[in-house]
C-alpha cells in the first residue's frame, strides 16, 4: 500500500486521497471566508526546498500546530456540518500521522531540526500577526498548500 516517507519517518495507514477529498469538499466555503488575500501563512520560504531530513521535523511541528491550535479553535467556531465533518476527518488523520512520526533527537541532527524549526517559526509568526479569527480561517484555508507539499512525500 501507499505510505508517507518524510525522510527517515515512515507513515502507513493514511490515504492521502481521503485527506484531499475531505478538504476539497469545503475548500470554496472556507477560502471564501478569508478576506485577507495579501497574506499567506505557508509562504514559499516555509515549504520550498525542504530536504528529506528536514521534512520529518517540519511536518511534526506543522501537524502539532494544526491539531493544538487550528482545528481545536476552528472546531469551536463552526457549526456548519460539512466543515465539521471535513475538519474531523483531517484532524483524525493528522493524529494517525503524528502517532507514527518519530523525528530523531540525535545531536548530529541538531542543525537540520533547527532549520526546520526556523521554517515553522516563519509560519507561526505570520499566523500570530493576524487577528485570531482571520488566522484560523486562513490556516484552515491553506490546507491545500500543506497537503500538496505532503503529497511529494507520498509513495
Amino acid at each position, binding site marked *: 500500500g501507499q505510505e508517507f516517507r518524510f525522510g527517515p519517518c515512515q507513515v502507513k495507514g493514511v490515504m492521502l486521497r481521503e485527506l484531499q477529498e*475531505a478538504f476539497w469538499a469545503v475548500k470554496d466555503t472556507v477560502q471564501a471566508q478569508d478576506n485577507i488575500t495579501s497574506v499567506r501563512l505557508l509562504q514559499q520560504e516555509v515549504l520550498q526546498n525542504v530536504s528529506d531530513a528536514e521534512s520529518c521535523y517540519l511536518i511534526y511541528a506543522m501537524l502539532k500546530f494544526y491539531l493544538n491550535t487550528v482545528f481545536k479553535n476552528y472546531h469551536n467556531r463552526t457549526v456548519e456540518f460539512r466543515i465539521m465533518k471535513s475538519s474531523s476527518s483531517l484532524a483524525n488523520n493528522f493524529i494517525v500521522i503524528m502517532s507514527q512520526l518519530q523525528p530523531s533527537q540525535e545531536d548530529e541532527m541538531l542543525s537540520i531540526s533547527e532549520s526546520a524549526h526556523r521554517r515553522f517559526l516563519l509560519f507561526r509568526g505570520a499566523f500570530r500577526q493576524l487577528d485570531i479569527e482571520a488566522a484560523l480561517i486562513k490556516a484552515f484555508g491553506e490546507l491545500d498548500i500543506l497537503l500538496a507539499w505532503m503529497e511529494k512525500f507520498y509513495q
Partner: protein
Amino acid sequence: AGALAAPQNLSVHSTNLKHLLRWSPVVVPGGTVSYSVEYQGEYESLYASHIWIPSSRCSPAVGPECDVTDDITANVQYNLRVRATLGSQTSAWSTLEHPFHRNSTILTPPGLDVTKDGFHLVIELEDLGPQFEFLVFYWRRESGAKEQVKTVRRGGIPVHLETMEPGAPYCVKAQTFAKAIGRHSAFSQADCVEVQGEALPLAL
C-alpha cells in the same frame, strides 16, 4: 407518558470497510420513532470532547440501523451514539460501549469470475470500490508449473491474464487488499478452466 426510552444494544457490523451501526428499536405503540446518530473520532475525544458530529446519512434515521461508512475516515478509534425522537420527545443518548476502529472490519474473499475467451484466460473481480485492490494468483495445473501474480487495481472490469495452451487447465485464485488499513482478505476458492484442442508442437 414517561420519558422516551434510549436505544439499547448498540453494535457495529463492519464488512469490507462498510460499517453499519445497529441498535434495538425503541417501540412506542402508535408512534413513529426516529433516531439521530453522532460520532467523534480520537481527535474530538482528546482535544474537544464536547464536540459530536452528526452522521452524514442518519440524522435522522427511521430504522434501527445507520451506515456510518462515510463518517469513519481515519484509522483511529471512533465513539458513536444514538438517541430516539418521537414528536417533541427526545431520549437520552446511548453510546457504543467500545469505540470502533475500522481495522476490525471483516474482509471477505472477493467474488471471482473465471472465463475463457477463445484461448484467452479472462477474469472479473467483484467491485468493492476504490478502497480495495486485488492480488490475483494464476497457474497452469501441471507439474513444475510456476504460479504467476498480478495486482488488479479495480474490480468490475474484465482482466486478461494469459493466453492459454490446450492440454492442461489454468487455475486462478484472488484476495483483496484493503489499502486504508493495509490488510488482506483470505483467498477465494481456486477456479480452473481449460481450452480444448491439440497441444501446439514445440518449435523445432
